[in-house]
Each structure stands twice: as structure tokens, then as C-alpha cells.
């Protein structure tokens, strides 16, 4: 690994405040200050052009030595203590920075930290500088048409051929795979091992021959997720992440990253009641039903759900800050949204009435309630269904015994055979 970035000549650890001052100057001279709070964008905002623009911003930051400040130098970082990264982030928070949408999270939050923990050094030396430079955005080739909640039931086949691996199968629900450069892929490398023992992870370039990525047209008529077809996709063994057939160990690292949990918050931060469900009040005004007691009950209920949800996230965030966040507690936050988003969505269409679900063709804001209703399905499935959260809460938090298992202790190929000839007997 050669040090290519501009400030890599620095060898001694600089004074923290001097470093902060340098960063402040550099940002002021090279980056654009943001007007207003950070923007939240809808799914269809992230076009290839928008992503390209963010890549250019990331490249500029990288070349100045401000990407991967706490990353090891051999991987393209600066090798500085995390306080320096925190100082830079504080200085940078009011500037327009690279925004890759959900790919920011899948790349920097989930996949790259997992790869750093388990990848081969020669691969990381080649790969990580590209990540820091914004040239390697990583999507998740996790779910399959036949294995969603049951991640370890992956059936994408990895066959070793000398120093190469050949991948065949299909992945699905890979967010923004059509905009990504790499995917982190779970595949079955040994069908004669029990389910969790025959898995191996790979980094796969999205432009590899034989890999076809197709955006899925979703119920809201946008495309956030993709389906991905692997036909004899061939990659070097260097791209393998973790040991052969030890994929489940890697998965544990990855799942902790993916579930994350609440942002650490200050225990004494004041919570507020907030505005009265502005979207619903607007719908009621339009329908002329603000005096209707049943409508008022619904609005009061939705507002209460909003507030209780915020209070619950703050509580989970506080657990995180206290270092007491366990996967069971994190599941409460996810399940709350999974259960109450659809409740609130139903309230919206009931308050809005038929007039909120039909609109003039030239009315740009017309579909708003319809889209809101449809999008409120997402949290009950994406990133772990309500049922998986209930399993997590039930088993990890409440100490309830597990269901009997029919897929451990025998070869995965036999698991599939037995399941197709199901008798209900263990």
C-alpha cells in the first residue's frame, strides 16, 4: 500500500487543536457550507448523477486526508486516534458532504467494518482506499427469494475452482445495488455441512461478468431494492471474507452492525410533545372533519403514537449511551415502528377519506397520502420482520425457550429434502 493522499507526509501525531484548526481552514476553503438542516431525500432522489456528485465530494475529502482519519495507514487512512476523527466531524457538520443515501449505511456502517474485521489483508489494502475515496460503495447481497428471515438458509452456490470461486444463484432486496460498486455476498460453499457450517462470504464487484442487477418495481412505483442474478460469476479467492465455511462467524459481526440500535443520547435531554400530527390535521381540515369526535380521537391517538415512539427511541438511545444496549432492547425500537407505522397509516387514510386517495392527474402532491400508506409497510418487514423482532424479544429479553429446530445437526441438503417431505416429526 503506497501513501498517495496529500497530507500523508505527516508522521508525528499533530496537536489535536492545531489539527482541528487545519481542518476548519481546509473545509472553509474547499467545501460548500450547507444552508439549513441536513436534507432528507426520498428514495428516487438518488440517481447515478446524484451519486456521481457525492463521489466527487468524497474524493476531495479523501485527497485532503480527511477520509478514514482513524483508519490504519496501510489501508489508506491516517492512523490517528478517534478523537481526531470526532474533531473533524464536528467541524464538518455544517458542510455539504457526500450523501449516498442508504448506501452510506450499508457501506460505512455494515459491510466495510465487517470486511475490516474478517477480510484478507491484501484485499483490504487494495479495496479500502477505494472505499475512502468514494469509489467502492457496497450493497448487501444477503436475502434470497428462498431465504429472507432465515438468512443462514442461503442457497446461492459457491464452488471453488483452484484460486477462483464460481457463484451461481439469486439475491434479492439488495438496496441500491444498481448504484453500488461492490456487494457483500453470502453463499453456500458446502452443502453436506449443517446449515450454519457451510457458508462463506465474498466481496463481489457489481460489474462482474455473469452478474445481472435489476431494480425491482415496488408497490409505491419507485425502485429502491434490486434483484441480482449470479450466472457463473467468477471471482478470485482474494475476495473471500473470512474463512471457508466460517461464514456464520462473519455474520455475527455483520448483524451487530446492521441492528445498530439507537443513537447515544443525553439522559437529560428534554423530550417535547411536538406538533399535533401535522399531516393528519391537514387531511382533516381538507375533509372538513376537524369537529368530528371520531376524527379527533384518531388524531389524538396518532399524536400519542408519535410521542411514545420518540420517547422509546430516546430510552433505547440512553441504553446505548450507558453501554447497556442488547439486541433484545434494540428490537423494541424496530418492532414499535413495524407495528405502529401501519396503524398510523390506516389512521391517515381514514381521516383523509376517499378524497385523499384520488387526485387530479396534474396535482403533484396528490399521491402523498397513498404513498404514505404504502410506504408504512416497510418497517414491518425490512431489516428483520416483526416476527423476527418478536423472537428476539421473546428469547433474548424475556428468556422464553426456543422453538424446536429442524435444521441443525444434519447436512443442509438433507434439511431441504426433509422439509419437502414434511411430517412434523423431529
Amino acid at each position, binding site marked *: 500500500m503506497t501513501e498517495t493522499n496529500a497530507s500523508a507526509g505527516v508522521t508525528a501525531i499533530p496537536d489535536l487543536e492545531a489539527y482541528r484548526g487545519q481542518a476548519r481552514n481546509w473545509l472553509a476553503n474547499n467545501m460548500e457550507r450547507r444552508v439549513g438542516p441536513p436534507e432528507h431525500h426520498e428514495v428516487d432522489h438518488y440517481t447515478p448523477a446524484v451519486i456521481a456528485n457525492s463521489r466527487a465530494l468524497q474524493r476531495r475529502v479523501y485527497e485532503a486526508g480527511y477520509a478514514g482519519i482513524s483508519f490504519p495507514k496501510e489501508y489508506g487512512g491516517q492512523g490517528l486516534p478517534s478523537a481526531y476523527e470526532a474533531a473533524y466531524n464536528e467541524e464538518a457538520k455544517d458542510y455539504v458532504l457526500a450523501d449516498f443515501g442508504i448506501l452510506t449505511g450499508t457501506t460505512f456502517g455494515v459491510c466495510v467494518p465487517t470486511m475490516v474485521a474478517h477480510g484478507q489483508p491484501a484485499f483490504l489494502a487494495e479495496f479500502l482506499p477505494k472505499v475512502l475515496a468514494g469509489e467502492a460503495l457496497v450493497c448487501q447481497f444477503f436475502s434470497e427469494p428462498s431465504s429472507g428471515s432465515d438468512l443462514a438458509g442461503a442457497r446461492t452456490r459457491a464452488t471453488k475452482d483452484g484460486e477462483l470461486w464460481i457463484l451461481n444463484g439469486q439475491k434479492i432486496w439488495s438496496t441500491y445495488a444498481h448504484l453500488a460498486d461492490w456487494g457483500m455476498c453470502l453463499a453456500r460453499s458446502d452443502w453436506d455441512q449443517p446449515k450454519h457450517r457451510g457458508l462463506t462470504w465474498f466481496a463481489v464487484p457489481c460489474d462482474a461478468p455473469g452478474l445481472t442487477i435489476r431494480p425491482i418495481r415496488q408497490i409505491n412505483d419507485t425502485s429502491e431494492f434490486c434483484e441480482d442474478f449470479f450466472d457463473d460469476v467468477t471471482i478470485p479467492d482474494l475476495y473471500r471474507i473470512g474463512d471457508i465455511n466460517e461464514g456464520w462467524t462473519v455474520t455475527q459481526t455483520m448483524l451487530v452492525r446492521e441492528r445498530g440500535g439507537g443513537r447515544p443520547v443525553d439522559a437529560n435531554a428534554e423530550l417535547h410533545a411536538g406538533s399535533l400530527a401535522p399531516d393528519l390535521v391537514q387531511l382533516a381540515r381538507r375533509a372538513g372533519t376537524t369537529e368530528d369526535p371520531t376524527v379527533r380521537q384518531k388524531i389524538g391517538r396518532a399524536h400519542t403514537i408519535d410521542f411514545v415512539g420518540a420517547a422509546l427511541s430516546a*430510552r433505547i438511545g440512553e441504553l446505548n449511551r450507558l453501554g447497556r444496549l442488547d439486541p433484545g432492547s434494540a428490537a423494541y425500537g424496530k418492532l414499535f415502528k413495524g407495528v405502529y407505522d401501519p396503524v398510523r397509516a390506516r389512521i391517515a387514510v381514514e381521516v383523509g377519506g376517499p378524497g385523499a386517495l384520488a387526485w387530479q392527474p396534474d396535482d403533484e402532491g396528490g399521491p402523498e397520502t397513498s404513498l404514505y400508506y404504502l410506504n408504512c409497510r416497510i418497517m414491518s418487514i425490512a431489516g428483520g420482520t416483526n416476527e423476527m423482532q418478536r423472537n428476539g424479544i421473546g428469547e433474548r429479553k424475556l428468556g422464553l425457550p426456543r422453538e424446536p429446530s429442524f435444521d441443525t445437526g444434519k447436512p443442509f441438503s438433507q434439511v431441504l429434502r426433509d422439509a419437502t417431505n414434511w411430517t412434523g416429526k423431529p
Partner: protein
Amino acid sequence: MELTLTDDQQLLRETAIRFMQAACPLETIRSLVDEKSRTDLPAGYLQEAAELGWFSLLVPEEFGGGSISGDGLRDAAILAEERGRRLQPGPFIAMNVMASALANGGTADQRERVLPAVMSGEAGAAWLANDATGAWAPGESISVTPKDDGFVLSGVAGVVQGAAEATWLLVVASGSDGLSQFLIPADGAGVTIHPLDSHDISQRFATVELSEVQTGPDALVGASGESGADIERQFQIALTLLVAETLGALDGLFEMTRQYAVDRIAFGRPIGSYQGIKYQLADMSLSIEAAHAVSTAATKAVQNGQSDAGEMASMAKAWLGDIGIEVAQGCFQIFAGIGYTWEHDLHLFLRRITMNGLLLGQSEWHRERICTIHGL
């Protein structure tokens, strides 16, 4: 419960738990019921509780009170939750409302004569802010008219907790100039207290009738006709404590149920291993965890006097009202037949949780109040 307690709060909590376990376990509550006792309190309960600081937390030190953490309501909410977990009887909420009201707006005489008696548990307290049906409606069914240099109070308050044993009554009355509060003796002329039997057998309620009760001007707590803001503040305190108490009861009932799901075997497995049962318990546990979040958020807001504290307390009450009754039913479903027996403790919890859902405004009432607060 808040996620972190100070050492002093932890001590307050542990001392309270030891006291409750010794003074009034569920067996004692059951025997008071079986004896058809008119009181819901074991002898000396209020005085002993007072020694642990239960009724002084909302009173400043200059009047002989004192909080544990500097935030008296947060301390009191810890007690309320532990009380609920053990279905403790007694006018804990009314005593604290009374103490807070007297410290806040009482006359010098009320502060010197009555406040210490309340804080020491020598005098029981009741707050008359319900209408005749027991619904939260301050001043709706008690009126005040001026007479000579004093006042005449008339009307009825229904389903008042602790009234049968109260020494002092804090009465909300409406007059031509607005809402006022009066402190009157419970055994005064014109006061009739009708004890009630109730659904919640772990505590006692009464209807209080005031027929032309004559008081002097010195019975006023706060200025005549100007008690609206004080009553709202006391309401927020009462709501916060009732929410915490209900949550404690829910926690207690849920823990019994969870343990039962681990222990009970059916069809060759602990029933908690069936997803059909596990998912019900997970959903109930989510409701309760969210209730802890909203209860502590509302308590902090009321403690800090946030301008939106009343709305937050209402949302906490509306949430507890809805999920309380659902979780109690869910627990019953998991216990099944045994939960329909008198000897099982489930019904004691079910009764308290149901009753608390109706006191101090039902969920629907609070949702309407939230809309009104926002000018909808």
C-alpha cells in the same frame, strides 16, 4: 422506571420495598377483603410510610419536606411504581397532591397545622375533583357561593380514593368567579361520606356529599376563583403518579405471566416456546417498555414544569389506559383457567389496572384534551 437511579433513590426504593413486603403483602390485602374491612390500610401504614419520606417529597425543605434527588416528583414516581407492583392501598397520590397544594398555596395556618400532619401520616387526605359519577371533572358537581365573609360548599364527588379515612379534604369548587380550592375537615358539619364497594378490591373508594358546608375565608387554598393553574399542576402530578402506579402493576402482572409461560408445560413443551404464546408476550412487553419510556418522559416534563408537560402527562395516561387493559387481558389469556379463580393473584392486578384506566380521565378524554390543547 428511569434507567438510572442515584444511590439515594436506590436506597429510597429498596427501603420502600422492604416496608411494603413487611407491612402489606398480597396476603394482607386478601385478608382485609375477606374480613370485609372498611379500611384498606393495615394499622400504622401511613405513619410508617411517612417515616420513609413518602408524603414529603413534593414539599420544600422550608416547610419540613425534602426530596431525595432534588427532583421530588421523580422520586415519588419511583415509589408509585413499586407500590403498583405490590398493589399497595392507601391515598398515596391524594396525600402528595394535598402536601404539594398546601406547600404551594396554603395559608400559614394550613402549612403549620395541616401540612405536617399530612407529611407525618397522622392525617389522611382526599382530593375532591371528580364529578358525582367519579369522572375527572374539577368543580363540575361541587359549587361554592360566598356567605358573610366565608363560603358555602355544596355538591357531590364520586369514587374518591381514601375519602372514608381522610382527616382533611381538598375540595375543588366552582363559583361565579371560577375554580377555587378549599381545605375542610372530613368530619365537619354537612360532610357525609358514603363508603363504596368497588371492582378494585385492593383499595377503598367513597362518595363524598357536601350539603351546605360552611367555611371561613381561611379554608381557601389559593385565591378565590383563581385556582385553575394550581389544579392543572396538581392534576399533572396525580396523572404522573397514577401512570407510574399502573405501570408497576402491569410490570408485576406481566412478570408473573412470563414466569408461568416458562414453567407451564403443554404438549410436551414449555408453553413459552410456542410462537403463538411467545409473540403475545413480546407484543405485551413492547407495550410495557414503551409505557416506561412515556411514563419517565412525562414525569421529567412535569417535574421540570415544561409548558407541554400537561399534554405529555395526558399522552402517558392515554397510552397506559389503552395498553393496560389489553395487556391485562393478554396475561389472562396465557394463564387461562387458573386466572379465573379467586385464589390466583391475577384478578387483583386486573382489577387495579382496569380501575386506574378509568380514574383521572379515560384515554378518550385525554385524546380530546390533546386536540384542544393544540387548538384543533
